[in-house]
């Protein structure tokens, strides 16, 4: 069983999980209006650390982001005996943009190694003396729950014994201007699920959960019972009108409504997200359990959200309380769900954490306290034949390589004329031709998209039939570096400040997995991971563990990395589960 042995939250309203929980229970928030901050032309409403808080966290030789992560992990490790030096312990870092604020400095812009999330993760892992390679989960707004799902699987597969899972993001002109270009920000306190909601608030925080695989059962212990990630296969930024991915992610859990204290939703307070979630929850039959959202206290803390909100939810159940949805007054969503703005009592000992994000991804996690949940056999778990038998291995059925120099498919060199970026367009024209969305994609997404098209062509099966058993799981080193630079350039000059939503959306590398899911109507898992460098062992571990999903029987997987428009490398393959 996978147990939570420690946790911490560092946010503008507290330095420990309990301080944070007490502040939330009392209805407090650090959300406030910022004008002229980071020279942004428009004001915004957010939950940010004060200068004093930033100074207290800051470590010599580390960035603000790294210092914050180190502070949270240090506190989480204070009172537990986890040997982080052991080859059986791993660091999993959940972040959407990590050190991206460094790009505003031209010295980093031209030498962006330090900006890369894998580099930050390595710095943090070295600080604590981990002997294993850290994994960065970069799955847009679901990253936090994705990271917990990955950690649970790696421990369940017995690949590791302990996982330190930290989620964090710090805000910057880069992120705020991007969300402003999406017209997604609320000019005042956000109002999740409310009829007058107009958008989200952004927030800063770090949150850490330490997981271990245990055999002894304890009454007050928290356990990760089940978790799943599903795609809408609908749009890279707009949520599904039928709540498709969230609905399917909820179904993977096997969590009966009568056992739940509450469902902690994403509840960003954008018009479309909250409406989508209400439909997904309604479809999944969660009509009477209270749905709450914590964005009215913290704003959207991005990479931290899934972990922070899971911790506050555990503290709430420990306190027999369902936390009020701050900012909510009158129901403004069509789904048949129950939301409340008053703290309420509960005796139930488990909850669901739900998230959704750009790239069409959705994640759900069922977490429970006490012996009843230690070895819970959910209906969905029972469907997974390998759950109790360690990990399975997959076999590669098709393989493609695309570099600026050429293309190899299943060992055969394809005849091409172009080099570099033009090669991708040549491949598109020769092999697809009727999918004009291709031209809207950034170069890394074009690369991954064309690699998947060639693989599926080689596979030769019927295409575009909706399915949930094929996952898309990709890895790289440079995250979304090209899109990051393009977005940074659009905001560098105050006199020519034109952040573009179609550029900003590709600053999330997992968009590539969403594009493949949309094209092929894949409702299964989509995940994106970043490593400091290509590491076949870690990639294979993650893929093996990914077959623990309730549905996944094959994966479009591999490496898709872009250093520049003319320097890229895709090594992708289809892996089929071996029984």
């Amino acid at each position: 069983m996978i147990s939570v042995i420690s946790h911490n939250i560092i946010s503008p309203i507290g330095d420990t999980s309990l301080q944070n929980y007490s502040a939330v229970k009392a209805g407090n928030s650090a959300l406030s209006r910022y004008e002229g901050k980071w020279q942004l032309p428009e004001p915004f409403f957010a939950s940010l650390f004060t200068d004093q808080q930033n100074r207290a966290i800051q470590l010599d030789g580390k960035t603000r982001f790294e210092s914050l992560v180190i502070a949270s992990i240090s506190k989480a490790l204070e009172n537990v005996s986890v040997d982080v030096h052991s080859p059986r312990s791993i660091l999993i870092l959940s972040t959407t943009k990590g050190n991206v604020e460094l790009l505003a400095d031209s010295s980093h812009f031209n030498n962006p190694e330090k900006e890369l999330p894998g580099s930050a993760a390595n710095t943090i892992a070295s600080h604590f003396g981990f002997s294993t390679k850290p994994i960065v989960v970069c799955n847009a707004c679901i990253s936090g729950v994705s990271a917990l799902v990955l950690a649970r699987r790696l421990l369940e597969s017995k690949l590791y014994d302990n996982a330190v899972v930290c989620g964090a993001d710090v805000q910057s002109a880069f992120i705020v201007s991007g969300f402003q270009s999406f017209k997604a920000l609320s000019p005042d306190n956000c109002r999740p699920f409310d009829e007058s909601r107009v958008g989200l608030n952004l927030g800063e925080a770090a949150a850490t959960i330490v997981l271990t695989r245990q055999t002894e059962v304890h009454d007050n212990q928290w356990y990760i019972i089940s978790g799943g990630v599903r795609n809408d296969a609908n749009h890279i930024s707009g949520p599904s009108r039928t709540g498709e991915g969230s609905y399917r992610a909820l179904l993977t859990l096997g969590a009966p409504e009568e056992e739940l204290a509450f469902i902690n939703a994403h509840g960003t307070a954008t018009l479309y997200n909250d409406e989508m979630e209400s439909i997904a929850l309604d479809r999944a039959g969660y009509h009477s359990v209270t749905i709450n959202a914590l964005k009215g206290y913290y704003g959207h803390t991005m990479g931290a959200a899934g972990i922070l909100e899971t911790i506050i939810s555990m503290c709430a159940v420990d306190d027999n309380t369902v936390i009020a949805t701050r900012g909510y007054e009158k129901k403004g969503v069509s789904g048949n769900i129950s939301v409340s703005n008053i703290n309420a009592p509960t005796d139930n000992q488990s909850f669901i954490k739900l998230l959704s994000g750009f790239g069409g991804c959705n994640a759900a996690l069922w977490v429970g306290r006490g012996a009843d949940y230690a070895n819970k056999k959910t209906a969905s778990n029972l469907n997974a034949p390998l759950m109790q038998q360690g990990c399975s291995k997959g076999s590669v059925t098709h393989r493609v390589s695309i570099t600026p120099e050429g293309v190899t498919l299943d060992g055969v060199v394809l005849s091409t004329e172009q080099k570099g970026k033009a090669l991708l367009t040549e491949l598109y024209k020769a092999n697809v031709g009727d999918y004009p969305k291709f031209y809207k994609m950034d170069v890394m997404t074009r690369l991954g998209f064309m690699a998947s098209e060639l693989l599926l062509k080689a596979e030769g099966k019927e295409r575009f039939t909706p399915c949930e058993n094929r996952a898309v799981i990709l890895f790289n080193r440079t995250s979304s570096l090209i899109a990051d630079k393009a977005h940074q350039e659009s905001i560098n000059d105050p006199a020519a400040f034109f952040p573009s939503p179609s550029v900003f959306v590709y600053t999330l590398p997992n968009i590539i997995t969403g594009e493949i899911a949309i094209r092929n109507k894949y409702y299964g898992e989509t995940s994106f991971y970043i490593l400091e460098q290509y590491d076949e062992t870690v990639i294979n571990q993650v893929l093996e563990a990914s077959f623990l999903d309730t549905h996944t029987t094959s994966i479009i997987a591999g490496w898709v990395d872009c250093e520049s428009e003319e320097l890229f490398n895709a090594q992708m393959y289809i892996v089929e589960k071996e029984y």
Partner: protein
Amino acid sequence: MATAELINEVKEHIIDVLHLEDITPADIENDAPLFGDGLGLDSIDALELIVMLEKQYGIRIANPADGKDVFKSVTSIAEFVASHKA
């Protein structure tokens, strides 16, 4: 009224910012709906057109809902631009 020259200019901007490869201004009908069937544009494209109006013509649309009438067709965009130039 928007001139033919302005209409053509708007089409070129649309093709450019929305990456409508293989489409020329002549392929876009002046009064055909841009969203839905038409060119198959989506919500990100609508936001991108808001950026285009600000960048090219200095016209700001704060609330994306206000863009709905403006972005009906190329003619409606050009007329909106012309009315702000006047």
